[in-house]
């Protein structure tokens, strides 16, 4: 310690310290005076005001729930709105024996135990003076029954509430989604202040993704009540701010066309407006009626939906995983051209099967006897498997992986819906990590025709098709056009201008081959070329659901419906100036050309010809 103490220092220090003690004491007195001033203000000046408030707790603060925003399609047709309905509500504070009251109500109105449980759960997280619904959407009979005995049920009343309504029911259920009662897990993650008084929250679909915008801001009212706790006067209130109305890019009429065209099949149709990325059709069949979910679906009805073999609750367009089958071929062919692995003119002889060197296994073509000598355009037009086995073998899995990745295979499309699946784009690296196995050459071959590990979702396939039609300019799909209250404003979102660098001569080769698929007499989807004054570019696909033994014969009529091949079709139109891209997947539909392509044809026709009328 190099410190030298002098007497002068010590005295100086003491003096300084005493000064500080005095300063601190003055500060303490000042701050305490501040507290006293505030106490005087509360207890003398404000006493009368606060005494009134405290008396019998006569002031209640009640939340004013905002009206949920309405969801419209691109032309202003209502997809989700709020309708007036009557609900039976209880205020626990005003009920002497709640259990007894609930029992009597249960007997009177035939309420299920489930509903009572639901009510109890909701009640426990509300203040005792908050009115909480027991029954939502009461029918006339229930209202009449209760009206007669109402005097015997203090604290129970019929209230008019707004209930979410979905006019298109199962048609748009997988896009719009639905709202349901807030559960305990949601209670923890939602901003509590904003949800006091709110009973419902978006569970899936747009209702879920855009919950914040749709919900609005909760207001409140300070209500003066009398001894019986009846409201007599509103002292002060802040009105709620209603939620935003949302305009989707979806065209509900087009959606209906696609949905109806799927007919008896399960499947999905996704159509994208290429210039913007706006999703025109997002159909998943079967759908389900979301309306019962709003008022609390009965357990057995829910079980029935859950266990249904057709899985109506399953969002096929967003989460369905399918092998792309031959629809992947245009992308593989483009990869071949871009990597200079093959030239478009190169001729390959197809004997109906392909063999790897020194392996006896026959990789078969769908066409027994083969296609003969084919170049790239013919291989795409006729969907020659052998050509693509050979090309895949030349490219190798890792080059295919890196090229397909650019088009969004194996990645979420980025659409504004939650729960999207990523699909699966295999690579050597992936197989080592996932299965701890090395990659086999045979797996490269079947990846080349869209089988094997490769899995895509319909939205992914539609995005890849749109990007191809856009000549490599990446299209990112989205559903919500804007959240303003005018329907004719332009979409706010602009597709990001990420580019895949592709030589235009290469892409033109692929597109003209895809035009041949529809407009060439040998094309696999030539059936949809009739009566149209524009050209469609497309590619059919047939995806195997199960493997057929090496020498067995696939006969559609022999096998169980559920094991039949999936039919796929991707396309865009008009081919020279693409406006719409579409991906169709028909589960167990058989051939892409005969089942999936006509669905796309109908949607394209309605979109292009309908648009001309506008």
């Amino acid at each position, binding site marked *: *310690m190099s*410190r030298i103490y002098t007497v002068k*220092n010590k005295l100086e*220090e003491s003096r*300084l*310290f*005493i000064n*500080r*003690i005095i300063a*601190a*004491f003055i500060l*303490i*007195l000042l*701050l*305490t005076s*501040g*507290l*006293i001033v*505030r*106490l*005087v203000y*509360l*207890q*003398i000046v*404000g*006493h009368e*005001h*606060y*005494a009134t*408030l*405290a*008396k019998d*707790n006569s*002031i209640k*603060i009640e*939340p004013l729930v905002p009206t949920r925003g309405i969801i419209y399609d691109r032309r202003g047709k209502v997809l989700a709105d709020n309708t007036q309905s009557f609900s039976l509500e209880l205020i626990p504070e005003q009920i002497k024996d709640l259990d007894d009251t609930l029992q009597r109500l249960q007997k009177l109105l035939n309420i299920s135990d489930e509903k009572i449980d639901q009510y109890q759960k909701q009640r426990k997280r509300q*203040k005792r003076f908050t009115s909480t619904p027991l029954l939502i959407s009461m029918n006339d009979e229930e209202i009449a029954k209760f009206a007669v005995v109402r005097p015997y049920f203090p604290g129970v009343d019929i209230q008019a509430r707004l209930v979410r309504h979905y006019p298109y029911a199962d048609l748009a259920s997988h896009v719009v989604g639905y709202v349901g009662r807030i559960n305990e897990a949601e209670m923890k993650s939602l901003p*509590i*202040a904003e949800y*006091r*008084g709110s009973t419902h929250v978006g569970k899936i679909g747009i209702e879920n993704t855009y919950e914040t915008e749709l919900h609005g801001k909760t207001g*409140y009212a*300070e209500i003066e009540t009398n001894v019986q706790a009846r409201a007599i006067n509103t002292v002060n209130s*802040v009105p709620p701010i209603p939620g935003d109305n949302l305009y989707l890019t979806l065209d509900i009429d087009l959606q209906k066309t696609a949905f109806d065209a799927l007919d008896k099949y399960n499947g999905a149709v996704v159509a994208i407006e290429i210039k913007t990325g706006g999703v025109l059709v997002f159909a998943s069949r079967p759908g389900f009626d979301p309306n019962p979910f709003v008022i609390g679906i009965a357990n057995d009805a829910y079980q029935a939906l859950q266990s249904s073999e057709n899985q109506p609750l399953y969002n096929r367009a967003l989460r369905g995983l399918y092998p792309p089958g031959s629809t992947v071929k245009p992308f593989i062919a483009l990869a071949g051209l871009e990597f200079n692995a093959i030239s478009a003119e190169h001729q390959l002889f197809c004997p109906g099967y392909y063999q790897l060197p020194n392996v006896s296994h026959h990789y078969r073509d769908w066409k027994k006897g083969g296609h003969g000598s084919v170049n790239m355009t013919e291989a795409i037009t006729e969907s020659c498997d052998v050509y693509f086995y050979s090309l895949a073998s030349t490219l190798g899995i890792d080059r295919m992986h890196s090229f397909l990745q650019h088009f969004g295979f194996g990645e979420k499309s980025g659409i504004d819906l939650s729960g999207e699946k990523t699909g699966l784009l295999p690579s050597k690296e992936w197989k080592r990590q996932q299965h701890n196995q090395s990659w086999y050459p045979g797996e490269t071959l079947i990846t080349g025709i869209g089988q094997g590990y490769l899995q895509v979702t319909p939205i992914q396939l539609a995005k890849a098709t749109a990007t191809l039609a856009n000549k490599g300019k990446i299209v990112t799909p989205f559903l919500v056009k804007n959240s303003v209250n005018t329907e004719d404003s332009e979409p706010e979102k602009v597709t990001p201008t990420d580019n895949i660098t592709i030589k235009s001569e290469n892409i033109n080769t692929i597109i003209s081959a895809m035009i041949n698929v529809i407009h060439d007499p040998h094309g696999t989807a030539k059936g949809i070329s009739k009566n149209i004054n524009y050209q469609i570019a497309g590619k059919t696909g047939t995806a195997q659901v199960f493997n057929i033994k090496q020498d067995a014969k696939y006969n559609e009529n022999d096998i169980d419906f559920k094991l039949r091949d999936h039919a796929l079709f991707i396309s865009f139109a008009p081919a020279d100036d693409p406006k719409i891209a579409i991906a169709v997947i028909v589960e167990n539909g058989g051939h892409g050309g005969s089942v999936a392509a006509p669905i796309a044809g109908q949607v394209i026709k309605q979109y292009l010809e309908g648009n001309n009328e506008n």
Partner: protein
Amino acid sequence: MKTETRSEQFHPPSVLGKILIRLHIDIPLFIGLILIALLSFTILYSAGSQDIDVLMRQAARVGLAFLLMTALAHVDPYQFKRYSALLFSFGILLLIAVLILGQFGKGAQRWLDLGIFRFQPSEMIKITTPMMVAWYLAEHALPPKSKQLLVASILIIIPTLLIAKQPDLGTALLVASSGAAVLFFAGLSWRFILAITAMLGGMTPVLWHFMRPYQRDRVLTFLNPEADPLGRGYHIIQSKIAIGSGGIYGKGWLGSTQSELDFLPESSTDFIFAVFAEEFGLFGCLGLLTLYLLIISRCLFIASQAQDTYSRLLASSLAFTFFVYVFVNIGMVIGVLPVVGVPLPLVSYGGTSIVTLLAGFGILMSIHTHKKFLPH
């Protein structure tokens, strides 16, 4: 204060006086603390729905805390000085340990499970931080130079950030102000004080970054209670109703209607002042504030009489921090400060803060009763 000084100098050597000197107890401070403790039991009985168990548990804690205070009063202040750095470092290590392997209490990592009992290192830091800063500054000539100021600031910021990270904003605030108080009493120039105040203003966004969502909610609620009148703002609104309805004379003991009917949340802990104000009115509040002021005055007096720099700085900082405690709690209950988790000292239900507070008073008594030589 003059009379007190005199009684100090001409202490009558009565038998009781001799015993108390042996016990190293400062009588005025002791009486003040006992009064507050009794007052606490009275109000806890009312706020805790007249539950005798609540009272017994609190009495046991207070008894234990008084024992600790007496024990610490026996320790020579030189020992506190000697072990300051060691205790401080140990406290910091415990804080880091809590952050790493801490048990979850109320969703925040504050506790360290020592097997027999659970220990909250941030409580210990409330005392060891001023000890450390006082020890460091006392090693150098006062007022502190910029280099010492820098080192002292680091010594304060480390525990403050560690506690804020837990997250326990109330305790972090108390630790920071206990350290800052040492600097103030050490004679930090007014210019520096102004500069630091300005700097802290600039630090607000950084602090905001460290806050958890619930802490941000509280600050936002304070700035605009109407933003969430049914949630966070509800505490403040109900608390104001309780206090205001008490009026000048109050509703009388056990007369609180707001806490009875569960309208006032946390009525036994952080918001107990509202119950007190409702039952005893403005007069009661003035009485309670006077009692607090008397205790603080006595502590400042003890600091002014201390004989070495370390003792002075530590004693005055403990006294001032006690005031900060009172001010922050009452300020938040009456709605002039944001809601941070600071209990009303010696009155709120709950053990940890009482033990730390009385340990601080023990140190003050030790400083006052271990003088090496008489003044003059």
